[in-house]
């Protein structure tokens, strides 16, 4: 198995260091290539690389990228080419686009059509205040779609039941936090 396929499998199985491994793997050649291709500074090339790597990572996790027809390297480069103009447009509108805009290049808010933006904001903020290990556990379950067995392995729990109980408790805490916020805002 090639190093790229190993990283692909590691991301799928929830390995925490796989993202950094992917990032380091093609960073140097990408930065050189991007500075020539887009006539940009090294810090711009760096930011573009972070966006391209995260989109690739997200596509692997959500299942959009199931198998490699070429290489992860060419996939990242293609994503960067596609995102370059969009990123440039964002930069022309404002000097400091910041993390929220970078995240919008990676994850489109319009993908979330079932809930209003206010609801997304409330739940996102509650999740951030939930802290660890709840945040990570819910990510393993709802984002990475790992089984309870896989979650107990990744997070170092005794067995799947422990992970299941903890997930229940975390969701209950999250519900209480969201209800509290709803009461403050709507009632």
């Amino acid at each position, binding site marked *: 198995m090639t190093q790229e396929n190993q990283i692909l499998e590691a991301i799928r199985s929830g390995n925490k260091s796989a993202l950094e491994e992917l990032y380091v793997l093609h960073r140097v050649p990408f930065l050189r290539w991007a500075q020539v291709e887009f006539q940009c500074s090294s810090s711009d090339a760096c930011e573009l690389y972070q966006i391209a790597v995260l989109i690739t990572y997200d596509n692997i996790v959500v299942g959009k990228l199931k198998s490699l027809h070429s290489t992860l390297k060419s996939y990242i480069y293609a994503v960067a080419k596609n995102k370059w103009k969009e990123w440039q447009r964002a930069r022309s509108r404002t000097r400091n686009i910041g993390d929220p805009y970078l*995240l919008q290049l990676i994850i489109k808010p319009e993908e979330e059509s079932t809930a209003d933006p206010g*609801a997304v904001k409330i*739940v996102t903020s509650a999740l951030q205040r939930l802290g660890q290990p709840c945040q990570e556990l*819910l990510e393993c379950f709802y984002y990475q779609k790992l089984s309870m067995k896989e979650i107990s392995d990744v997070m170092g729990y005794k067995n799947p039941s422990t992970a299941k109980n903890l997930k229940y408790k975390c969701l209950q805490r999250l519900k209480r936090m969201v209800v509290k916020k*709803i*009461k403050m805002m*709507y009632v």
Partner: protein
Amino acid sequence: MFNKEYVLTKAFSNTDPGQKATDTGFRVRISLLLVQHFKCLRFAVRYNHLERALHRLQDHENRMN
């Protein structure tokens, strides 16, 4: 499942039906809002995960420079 008829029957069977109905209405409204909010749970979890991942990459980059 939420049974509206059952809740209303319970609400009006109390000695103080007006108050009970208000309390029930309040709870039902909160429950419905909670359901509506939890529809975006997957998206919110994904957004938070990617936000932290971006910060990790930025930290990683800073350490390398």
